[in-house]
């Protein structure tokens, strides 16, 4: 079972690394934010998987819950931040 979890963590880390391409090369700032949010969601699951591997799931669940809340609040705050257009010329 441990082999299964470790291989699942490997696949998940690949899935976590792919959005970094979008974060690096997003045409707009929203693409970068979207990539960052996707990375956050996958990090949450990978934290839970590490908790399963190390047999400390009860502790890692709390960390993951905090991470989910921080991810949500961060995206909302960033979405609030980019209010004005880049060029004010209409």
């Amino acid at each position, binding site marked *: 079972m441990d082999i299964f979890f470790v291989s699942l963590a490997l696949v998940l880390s690949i899935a976590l690394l792919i959005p970094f391409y979008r974060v690096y090369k997003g045409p707009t700032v*929203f693409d970068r934010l*979207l990539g960052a949010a996707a990375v956050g969601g996958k990090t949450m699951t990978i934290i839970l998987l590490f908790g399963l591997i190390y047999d400390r799931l009860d502790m890692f669940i709390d960390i993951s819950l905090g991470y989910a809340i921080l991810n949500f609040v961060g995206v909302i705050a960033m979405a609030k931040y980019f209010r004005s257009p880049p060029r004010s010329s209409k």
Partner: protein
Amino acid sequence: MSFLQDAVAVILMLSGTFFMLVGSIGICRLPDFYTRTHAASKVDTLGILLFLSGLAVFEGFSQSAAKLLLIIVFVALTNPVATHALARRALLFGLKPWYGHKDEKEER
């Protein structure tokens, strides 16, 4: 019983990982911001939900499973809201959607 539980958990976790992988590919592959938001909001949410429910099934009836249910409800409520906030801000920002490279023929 335990074998059945493990089998359901493994299937749920594998499908969750698959959907998260597809969500990542979609974020890179789709052509513009709004369509990428589709991939991030739907496929990623489904992947995370499946993965967490697989973990909850694997844990069985315990406090950890209850906390995992809490995380499931939280993610299902907040992930679409977060992507909606981003997309709305992009719309107010003036980001133009991509309408596809189609010629000027009138559909219907």
